[in-house]
């Protein structure tokens, strides 16, 4: 049975699309048939991060409106052959998404995939609600700062109230906390919330911590999901996260500030 997972946060710019791309690529790399859907209609970004922006012909909205078939709109990733991308439309707005349309597409995708990753837009409006509505599990992406935590809390409340599982009285959506852009040295200086603080405030289980890293931006610019940059710290952190999602036990890494050696202190990083 295919699983639908929403990657959401409430707040913008915390790393939802980066996470969606790496999460989907990570699942696919392990042999699972995976599709990642960009729900950010009007501000499509996922295709850029996945490096397939020039291959977009038809999009999510075209399929909903019957202008194209799902097969025409799906883009097969060139690096991982079990990965498909369903891009958003750049020229429409989020009202083009209809509940029935989304449900129909998800039902079709379920037939041919193991995992369906929904990349939610920021905010709590139509697009975000649509992205989380059919979710079985949710990855709540949070940065270690109060506004991000507050917005994550809000979106958790919406998951508990407005998701299909909640409305149908089924088992609630399984929630996972993923902390991104974590900088242990700034946590030590009291400029950022610690993992413990965030967990205490949100009260959901932690599935991963992605350190703040140059490699994320570099990978994004290169159109490569950072999880495929296997040498980088954030790439490894995403691999740990995917492993934990699939049930493996992995210790949390990148929680301690790196001790600067004498030369590094002298010359800077």
């Amino acid at each position: 049975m295919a699983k639908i997972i929403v990657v959401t946060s409430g707040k913008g710019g915390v790393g939802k699309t980066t996470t969606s791309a790496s999460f989907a690529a990570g699942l696919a790399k392990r042999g699972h048939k995976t599709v990642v859907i960009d729900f950010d209609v009007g501000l499509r970004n996922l295709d850029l991060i996945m490096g397939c922006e020039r291959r977009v012909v038809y999009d999510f909205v075209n399929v909903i409106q019957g202008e194209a078939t799902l097969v025409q709109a799906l883009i097969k990733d060139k690096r991982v052959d079990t990965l498909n991308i369903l891009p958003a439309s750049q020229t429409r707005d989020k009202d083009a998404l209809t509940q029935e349309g989304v449900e129909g597409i998800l039902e079709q995708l379920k037939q041919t995939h193991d995992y369906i990753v929904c990349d939610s837009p920021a905010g709590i409006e139509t697009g975000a609600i649509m992205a989380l509505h059919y979710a079985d599990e949710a990855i709540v992406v949070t940065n270690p700062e109060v506004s991000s935590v507050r917005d994550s809390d809000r979106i958790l409340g919406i998951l508990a109230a407005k998701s299909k599982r909640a409305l149908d009285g089924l088992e609630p959506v399984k929630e996972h906390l993923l902390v991104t852009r974590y900088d242990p040295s700034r946590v030590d200086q009291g400029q950022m919330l610690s993992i413990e603080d965030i967990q205490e405030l949100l009260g959901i289980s932690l599935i991963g911590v992605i350190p703040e890293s140059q490699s994320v931006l570099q990978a994004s610019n290169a159109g490569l999901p950072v999880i495929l940059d296997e040498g980088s710290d954030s790439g490894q952190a995403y691999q740990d996260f995917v492993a934990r999602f699939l049930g493996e036990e992995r210790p949390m890494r990148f929680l301690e500030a790196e001790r600067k050696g004498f030369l590094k202190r002298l010359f800077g990083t």
Partner: protein
Amino acid sequence: MDTVRTDKSTTKDLFENIDNDSAIEIKGSVFTLPVLKIKSTQLAQIELALKQHLSKSLSFFRNAPIVIDLESTKQLQPGLDFEQLNTLLRGQQLVPVAVQKGSLEQHLAAESAGLAILTGQLSKSVKSDISPTKSADDTALAMDESPQEQPNVSAQSGSPVTAPQDTGSVPTKIISQPIRSGQRIYARGCDLIVLAAVNAGAEIMADGNIHIYAPLRGRALAGVTGGENNRIFCHSFEAELVAIAGSYRVFEDTVPSGVFKKPVQIYLRGEQLDIVPIQ
């Protein structure tokens, strides 16, 4: 239905859009309302006494729904003209809603004047300190009011509409999930017990008391329909705002260090909202 709310209503606008999902919802509710005991059938006499009485109690009874107690007028002649009594009371800015303890004829007449008949054993109203005067006893009417009585503890009421309360049990709303930013919970006509955190940006309200066996980081409002005796209890006090019966305190930056993250109770002492650690 022995009692009707006297609504102080400073917080009412906070929850008026709660039930807008469907056009209507029917619920049983217990209210506290003043009872006007009439001891004369002479309308002029009643009016005079009422004017004297109301002038002393300031605007407390303005537009208050009241029940007319007819017990003392059952045998009196001539009978009461309820249409005129209605007009008289409304002229004094009272809203008569029902009569009680009258004779059969009186009840029939009251009914045709658009008043409801309250039957059954009615709760003993508590004479509160706000009752402005005792001298009303020897005038044509007496006014008992118990508006501050907590709706949820007026359990002695034998009124048939509040059947569950006959057993002495108090209805309570219990929440075991975290209440998250943007969520709002209202325990109508009862106490509220929360077993998980009330996070910043969340709002919980109860007509009765509020108990939180976890951190309170958001807003908590107890006694929202005027229950000044209601209290708030919490395990770890980190609130943004607390209120009882419309008296509130906001904690702009952070709460005072003496009670921060401590188990506390919050209650109204006169006009003052006290936040006291629980040892």
